[in-house]
């Protein structure tokens, strides 16, 4: 095998790592952190340029660059760009303006890319660890805030447990099949002969991935960590690691563990119902908007899980579609929360949104759009995402599950629309604070708004694309 074909599928990752390392060095000389932020966006632009050319597999199938992984890589890039845009001003307000922030976000994204492309369970684990380790540090990035420290520590300890659990699961899979290559697993696993140990291995893998994508009952860390971490990092964490987790889940379970589908499908059905139930119902009680969005992100993990439960190409493409849409609407909502954060104002309590629409009609309208989209009201993108997920369920004889999911979506309307109600229907007792605007934040908001509307009104290009690249 010659060098070129060995390296080609990996080229985007290699370029991205090289540029990220370069940024570490440049950070020493450049004191304007905005420049570093621009460099990280440029890094993504350069990497994205090499992506379409990278199709293929390398290292004996350990690393696969196919349509599926490329789609997820684009999600990660969008996630990164939007996060960087909303971070610049926010970090200044929080007095934590370090260039390393952008480097860590870049490396975390490299980890996600490796996860999406992993054709081998060991590579998958290492990608997961690279992603997670960077996010632990990011969660504790505001060092002078005890809340942020607490979030980082909790995330780290529980994340370390989940790493141990996934390794145990992988070792059991290896003991039963003699291989760690995901594409070799279906023929090597004898599902009927080893039903019980295989079930244990499956449960370990599900627990560890469930932790990463925050499925109930592995979600306990989510509200605390999302609330305590810097809001920009929360936006990043609630999309990137989740999408990467789903990318890995899809490949491992739908491709690698197909022989055991009867065993894992019902586990996933139970987990997704529990996740939607807990996420949506507990969110109703939340007064802190970051906590509310944390529970909402748990609920959305439950919806996305339905795509895997459906166990069909349509299900997987609906899940991919949903995760992309979720990226835009969720980061958009967090961007508005970040706008409210100013030097003397936290902007996290629901009461602080009272009378918001009168003073800032435009931003309130934008928040309204995101809340509608998260609920799944047409003509926003959120509706399209949910519609195709439920459609995939119905097509695969799981109509009852689709009905359950719709009921939970209706419940979710209560707490999403409550934010809208506070903004539009209540008068503020105190003075409504001014927004901390910046061009970058405005650009992020513009991008998210445009995509939430465009995908909602004209979804067919995206739908055609995910149909082609589905597993």
């Amino acid at each position: 095998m010659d060098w070129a074909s060995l390296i080609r599928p990996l080229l985007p990752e290699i370029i991205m790592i090289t540029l990220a390392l370069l940024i570490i060095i440049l950070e020493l000389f450049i004191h304007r952190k905005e420049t570093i932020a621009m460099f990280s966006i440029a890094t993504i632009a350069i990497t994205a340029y090499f992506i379409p050319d990278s199709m293929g597999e390398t290292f004996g199938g350990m690393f696969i660059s196919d349509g599926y992984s490329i789609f997820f890589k684009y999600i990660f890039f969008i996630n990164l760009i939007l996060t960087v845009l909303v971070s610049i001003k926010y970090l200044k307000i929080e007095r934590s303006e370090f260039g390393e922030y952008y480097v860590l976000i870049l490396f975390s994204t490299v980890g996600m890319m490796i996860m999406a492309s992993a054709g081998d369970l060991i590579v998958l684990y290492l990608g997961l660890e690279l992603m997670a380790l960077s996010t632990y540090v990011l969660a504790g990035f505001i060092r002078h805030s005890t809340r942020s420290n607490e979030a980082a520590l909790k995330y780290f300890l529980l994340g370390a447990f989940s790493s141990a659990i996934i390794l145990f699961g992988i070792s059991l899979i290896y003991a039963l099949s003699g291989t760690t290559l995901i594409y070799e697993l279906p023929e090597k696993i004898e599902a009927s002969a080893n039903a019980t140990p295989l079930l244990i291995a499956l449960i370990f893998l599900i627990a560890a991935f469930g932790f990463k994508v925050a499925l109930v009952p592995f979600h306990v860390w989510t509200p605390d960590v999302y609330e305590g971490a810097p809001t920009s990092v929360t936006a990043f964490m609630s999309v990137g690691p989740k999408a990467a987790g789903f990318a890995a889940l899809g490949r491992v379970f739908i491709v690698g563990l197909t022989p055991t589908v009867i065993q894992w499908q019902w586990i996933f059905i139970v987990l997704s119902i529990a996740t939607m139930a807990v996420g949506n119902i507990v969110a109703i009680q939340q007064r802190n908007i970051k906590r509310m969005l944390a529970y909402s992100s748990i609920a959305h993990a439950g919806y996305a899980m339905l795509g895997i439960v459906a166990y069909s190409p349509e299900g997987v493409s609906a899940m991919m579609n949903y995760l992309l849409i979720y990226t835009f609407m969720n980061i958009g909502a967090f961007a508005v929360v970040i706008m409210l954060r100013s030097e003397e104002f936290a902007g996290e309590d629901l009461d602080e949104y009272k009378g918001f629409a009168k003073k800032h009609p435009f931003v309130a309208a934008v928040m309204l759009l995101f809340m509608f989209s998260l609920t799944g009201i047409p003509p926003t993108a959120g509706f399209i995402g949910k519609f195709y997920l439920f459609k995939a369920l119905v097509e695969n004889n799981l109509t009852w599950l689709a009905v359950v999911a719709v009921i939970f979506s209706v419940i979710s309307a209560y707490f999403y629309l409550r934010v809208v109600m506070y903004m539009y229907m209540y008068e503020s007792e105190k003075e409504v604070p001014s927004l901390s605007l910046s061009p970058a934040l405005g650009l992020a908001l513009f991008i998210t708004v445009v995509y939430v509307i465009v995908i909602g009104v004209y979804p067919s290009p995206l739908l055609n694309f995910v149909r082609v690249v589905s597993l």
Partner: protein
Amino acid sequence: MVEIIFGYFAITILIISLLVVTSRNPVHSVLWMLLLFFHVAGIYLLLNAEFLAATQIIVYAGAILVLFLFTIMLLDLREEMQIQRFTRGWPAGLLISTGVLIVLITGLKGFKTTFVGQWDIKEIEEATHTKALGKVLFTEYLLPFEIASLVLLIAILGAVVLAKKKLKT
């Protein structure tokens, strides 16, 4: 003979692990753990994995344990010894892990004891484990190896970020 040695290591590891988690004094826990690491290294030796055995002692007993001892120096030992060793939910944990153990034992037949690839026991014995591991690590498993190096880089970067002086107060 090999079975007796393995049995010794296996049973001792179990007993020591119990002592690690039940000792009231954290320093005792760490010292038991030191003994544990040596016994795990013994198991590696039985498996013809002398490189892993050496790494186990150098990295775990040498580096990680020293780190643990440093951490314990920061604790208030007297107060620490008053604290309940286990949380109230420990019987549930015991129940679940025993269940997992039973299921794994009943499924023991399903585990494959063969090897994959060119390196069987004879060849490893001939070429030495260090050489075999090195060859595999730098050819077949080069990619995971390189990713692991990135993980280490992030660990350094993270430590620097979290420990460096404040930018402004």
